[in-house]
């Protein structure tokens, strides 16, 4: 068995635009997906995530580079010769076939004896908790049930990799949350590598072992959810995943661990973590998550502490979301409401003055683009 379930080696996919020019939907992408991993491709629409998936499935062929599946170069192999199966965003269930016929289709193509087909289809339907639905037609099922049939139809073939193209996109929020957990536990159960395309960061964070964040055809960062959120390697990833504050400035001091930058809008300096890639006098952005800033009556640190005016505050139950201003810098702060009181001052309601403290380990210094 190969080390990687799927590997993209310097893959480029160009498409012709209607104006006649060429555009790289996937631009020199290298990607290694481990065996048995739940791997997500995350990005906004047009970032190349679906095209990457379609190249793994064989619906598109790379313009340059090579796709390896289980160590084998795929070249221009058609989809029906690849050991992968796909769950489509639209499910693409065959409307003229029953649930049983849909799930059995792939096994029939493999010329599996009919006795075994019945058995395996039964097991697959049991796995997605839809036993007894086999004589229905797809139209007679709800969106969530259709989704499960699509899953069963792909998994019954026991592919070495399952490709999922935004499979939960059409479901309503509650069902989607349920299916996220179910998909994740199903993946653990069957141990098949899942490659999951989504534009929903929360979905990716919830389900994935590792995430690849893509933008404009390039992979910006690959890592486990914690790393992607806590240590974004560039401004785009910090901005795309979750919510953050950016402080723009110039590096005035640097050592192995820490970077000091002058922030003109704050009219002050800010000390942050050195994540590498910046030098003295570089233009930088310092990213600080809104939930990692502390708002206090007095300063806790002798540096990285700024007097702020609360401009607005929104009490949303678990959190209070504040917009504050220090000098000319706007800052978002999310405070967890961990004490229960009816005193509005505890939630910084109204125009109040306070001090915002940013611990250096919560401030990531990233190169300005």
């Amino acid at each position, binding site marked *: 068995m190969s080390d990687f379930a799927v590997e993209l080696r310097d893959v480029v996919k160009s498409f012709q635009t209607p104006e006649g020019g060429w555009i790289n939907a996937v631009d020199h992408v290298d990607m290694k997906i481990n065996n048995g991993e739940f791997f997500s491709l995350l990005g906004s629409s047009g970032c190349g995530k679906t095209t990457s998936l379609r190249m793994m499935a064989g619906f598109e062929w790379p313009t340059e580079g090579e796709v390896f599946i289980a160590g084998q170069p795929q070249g221009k192999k058609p*989809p029906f010769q690849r050991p*992968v199966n*796909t769950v489509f965003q*639209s499910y693409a269930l065959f409307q003229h076939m029953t649930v049983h016929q849909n799930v059995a*289709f*792939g096994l029939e193509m493999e010329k599996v004896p009919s006795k075994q087909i019945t058995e395996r289809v039964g097991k697959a339907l049991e796995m997605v908790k839809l036993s007894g639905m086999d004589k229905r037609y797809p139209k007679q099922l709800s969106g969530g049930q259709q989704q499960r049939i699509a899953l069963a139809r792909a998994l019954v073939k026991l592919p070495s990799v399952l490709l999922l193209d935004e499979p939960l996109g059409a479901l309503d929020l509650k069902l989607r949350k349920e299916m996220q957990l179910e998909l994740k536990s199903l993946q653990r159960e069957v141990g098949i590598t899942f490659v999951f395309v989504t534009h929903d960061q929360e979905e990716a964070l919830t389900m994935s072992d590792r995430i690849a964040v893509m933008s404009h055809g390039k992979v910006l960062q690959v890592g486990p959810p914690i790393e992607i959120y806590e240590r974004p390697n560039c401004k785009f990833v910090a901005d795309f995943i979750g919510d953050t504050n950016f402080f723009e400035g110039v590096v005035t001091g640097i050592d192995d661990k820490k970077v000091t930058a002058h922030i003109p809008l704050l009219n002050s300096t800010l000390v942050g973590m050195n994540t590498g890639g910046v030098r003295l006098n570089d233009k930088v952005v310092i990213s600080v998550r809104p939930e990692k800033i502390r708002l206090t009556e007095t300063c806790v640190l002798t540096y990285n502490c700024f007097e702020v005016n609360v401009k607005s505050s929104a009490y949303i139950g678990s959190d209070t979301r504040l917009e504050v201003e220090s000098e000319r810098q706007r800052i978002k702060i999310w405070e967890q409401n961990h004490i229960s009181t009816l005193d509005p001052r505890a939630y910084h309601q109204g125009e109040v003055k306070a001090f915002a403290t940013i611990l250096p380990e919560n401030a990531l210094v990233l190169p300005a683009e």
Partner: protein
Amino acid sequence: MNPHRRSIFVKTMTFLVYSFLYLPIFVLIIYSFNSSKTNILFEGVISKFGDLQIVDGNVLQSPCGPFHWFCELAKNKEVRSAAGNTLEIAFISTISSTIIGTLAALALSRYNFKLKPFSEMSLYIPIVIPEIVMGIGILTFFSQVFNYLNSLIGLQGDARLGLGLFTVIVSHIAFSVPFVVLVVRARLQGMDQSYEEAAMDLGANELTTFFRVTLPMLLPGVLSGGLMAFTLSLDDFVITFFTNGPGSTTLPIYVFGLLRKIITPQVNALSTIWIMVVFTVVLLLQWLQNRESSHK
């Protein structure tokens, strides 16, 4: 103003439109039961069954009763042969044009190839150019090709290639294909390509995918395309007029010939049957399309 109020104007227009559309057909059908032989005046329905009795050119009694002209029609060998030709041409051209048209529609909406814009244009031209131009074109083409072939192979007399059933069928296929393409393509456009991708993803090659997934899902479109080709072929006059030859007279050509002689209620009887056939086909087409839309 109440939007549901029907003004006198709307009512009158509706009445006029329907009158213009259906009154002639209604009159035509009534006349097929006329007791007069001349088809100019309506002299009442033949009411009695019995031995044929004609007085002053009026049929008073007939073995078929009111359906006298239908019986006469059935006895008419020329009509039977024309009807046979018409059906033969319609069936063969419908099947051929449906197959060709479906394949063309698939090629145009699922594949990219060099001459695609040209093929697209050329397919739709027969829909817009006047039928008479196409008729003359096809006639010129056939006579040129047949002349060349006859002299090349050295065919003499009756053995020479000429206009006949074959040329009519070919020309009917030629003008039906674009309509089939139009209908099937509309259906294909509404059919997400992911169904075919899913089939291939599950291990079906192109051919299996076509027969197991694409064709069954496309079937309503293919059938309505075929029915359209059938009705087009059934009542085509202009192109058939140019391309028919001895022994390939179709019903429209035959009726046109009759009109220049005497118009007997036989023509009306024939038209009545014809209207019923076309009407049934149209109803079938409607039903198919309704079923298709309710399935979505």
